[in-house]
């Protein structure tokens, strides 16, 4: 069994409306030094696999076909062996 920790980020050139809106809140809060707020996705899940290679393949498929859209997002992940 492996645990995957996936980070999905919008490409830097793609507008992040949520980050922009949240940054407005920061300004109203009085924080003047904040810029480039980007809100990305962090996803965790378990993979029932014996080999790291098989687990990796499954995570890659999950990420590229469902969790992320490769046209506008990049993803990276870590695998950790669990019991």
């Amino acid at each position, binding site marked *: 069994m492996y645990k995957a920790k996936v980070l999905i980020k919008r490409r830097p050139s793609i507008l992040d*409306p*949520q980050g922009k*809106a949240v940054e407005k809140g920061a300004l109203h809060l009085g924080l003047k030094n904040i810029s480039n707020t980007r*809100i990305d996705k962090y996803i965790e899940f378990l993979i029932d696999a014996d080999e790291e290679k098989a687990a990796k393949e499954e995570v890659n498929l999950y990420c590229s076909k469902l969790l992320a859209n490769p046209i506008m997002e990049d993803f990276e992940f870590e695998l950790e062996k669990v019991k």
Partner: protein
Amino acid sequence: MKVKFGVVVFPGSNCDHDAYYSLKKILGHEVNFLWHKDTDLQNSDVIILPGGFSYGDYLRTGAIARFSPIMNSVISFAETGGYVMGICNGFQILLEAGLLPGIMLKNKSLQFVCKDVYLTVENRDTVFTKETNLNKKLKIPVAHGDGNYFADEKTLKSLIENKQIVFKYSSINGEKKESDNPNGSVMDIAGIINKRGNILGMMPHPERSCNPVLGKTDGVFIFNSLAKSILN
């Protein structure tokens, strides 16, 4: 005599005009819109934080609107006993601002719910509910994706002890069944009030239940209670 209502307009508010229309055209009160970037409450007797999707509901519902410049004035106004009513997104903003306890989770069904619901009035001894009939169940619509009210046990205990739970979802007969709770809120809570009794937050939309043309007018009880309390 007219009551002066101030309806705050946030970017993404979409029930501001419903509130304006019902309060002014149907109930005959004086109503002003208050822009979120302003700080002047224009001597309003009551501040309405309307429904909608302020700041796109980004981060958490109400989380960014809570820091709008107008909110500093609203918080000061509320802290000195001014009447504030948060409807739907307005309720969510009051929770984020810490003016009311608890938080709002996604609806248990994961679906946006838009329908008429029935409410029992759990506390008639408030400025918002004085004019409601004891046995009457209020028919008022809900329209939200995040209306699943939640608070820890300590907070719930305090809400009960201080009679702060004002409205609960129920059947038309007042029974509390799971199927009559549209969002999974804890203890079927639909609306709460602060300890002092001047700040009300509710998920259902009383402003959409004022015009007889729409087939329901129970929202009028709430606004009339408030107006009578102020004018007396």
